[in-house]
């Protein structure tokens, strides 16, 4: 009888801790939102490499800009943030961005 009671109480204690622990955990699941870039030469490389660190709406939301500004942005991603983008890929990406998100200058 006593043993049963102790087991019973123990069950309460364990269940209580489990409940409290669960109550102390906050968890969310972020939505999977994919952004598609304009089709064109260099799109795949741009999508793949830029997507390592950020979603592609970081590109699509920007105002249309001169090629020099896109070049400076790609350089910033490489030199300041260490994006693993080779010289050749940087050239491809810059050309692509200027062609599809540029202002023709």
């Amino acid at each position: 009888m006593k043993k049963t009671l102790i087991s019973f109480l123990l069950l309460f204690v364990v269940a209580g801790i489990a409940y409290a622990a669960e109550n102390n955990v906050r968890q969310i699941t972020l939505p999977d939102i994919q952004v598609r870039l304009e089709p064109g030469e260099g799109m795949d490389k741009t999508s793949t490499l830029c997507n390592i660190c950020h979603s592609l709406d970081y590109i699509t939301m920007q105002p249309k800009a001169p090629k020099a500004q896109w070049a400076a942005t790609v350089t910033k991603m490489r030199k300041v943030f260490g994006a693993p983008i080779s010289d050749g890929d940087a050239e491809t990406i810059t050309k692509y961005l200027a062609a599809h998100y540029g202002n023709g200058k």
Partner: protein
Amino acid sequence: MDDQLLSRRSLLKGAGAFTALAALGAIPSDIFAADRMARFPEKTDLMLLTARPPQLETPLHFFKNMITPNEAVFVRWHISQIPTSVDLNTWRLKIGGNVDRELSLSMDELKKFDKVGYTAVIQCSGNGRGLFEPRVFGGQWGNGAMGNVTWAGARLKDVLAKADIKAGSVDVSFDGLDRPPLASIPDLVKSLPVDKALEDDIIIAYEMNGQPLPMLNGFPARLIVPGWYATYWVKALSEITVLNKPFEGFWVKTAYRIPDTPCGCVEPGSAPKKTIPINRMTTRSLIIEPANGTASKAGSPLEISGIAFSGGYRIREVVVSTDGGRTWKEARLGRDMGKYSWVQWSFNWKPEGPGNYVLMAKATNSIGESQPFEGLWNPAGYLWNKVEKTEVTVR
């Protein structure tokens, strides 16, 4: 404009059907990005600037209310590994560095400090960046990267006092649980000069409008530096370090800087000679009702209403113009909820007759700071506080 609204509406209408289809896996998820509204966990539908890391803007109609509900407060993260799970059994706020007693506080321990609270505007440094001319790169916010929230938590200075700051302390740095996706990307760490950090009103908030913070707004606790831009309001705060030399981290030394000029501005398109870390918010006002593009009937009175705030000083006056800035009249100010809160204002207007009207509002704070009629320019797109124009048609 009308066409845009229409296409946006039809997109929104279609979104429900898309959601159902997406749940069945019938269409790719990128369809959602098309209408640029998104619902993230614990948040309502907000304007989607970016998905990863998330940047979500509050639609202006939420600012009809004095207090912005938690689910509607804007979201802005910098580096993509953001906390999506926090276990309060293991979460600790660590205080270390140039202190005599290192601390590792649980939430229960943090809550044992005196609880203080106030209402304060939270505003992104880049709020309004999308309105800059010439345009600048960065988060293309309209005016919805702000909100007015009642915060509560422990005073930072009380926590620092318990850790016994040593003499010779210079800066205090703040790190949260977010982490960069690459080791080469500087972690988001912010700092304040020690004198600023010890001010009475800076708190470590664990309550937002009486509730725990939503994860995307910095659960379980964030720093509140009222009157200053939210770049300092480090989310999911986990580590406070007292430094005996100036903080050299990227996000203070290189990023979030403004020209060191009285207006914080430079000639559009030019580079500042010298910069300083961004700090106090500029004075702002915004017409919320009527919304831009509203049509109303001649002969019926129209209430113009909105909000005004500044970086830690009470709003002394809001003036309104209904003729594009030629003449100005004083608006009636609503309840004063302290120098960090916004104030609501209203102005009863009876349009003289049919026509197109340009409404404007301009606020002045208690130390005379006001708003420019032309946008002041800086390369990073900060400090936006131009007197905005709301166009209405009276028929």
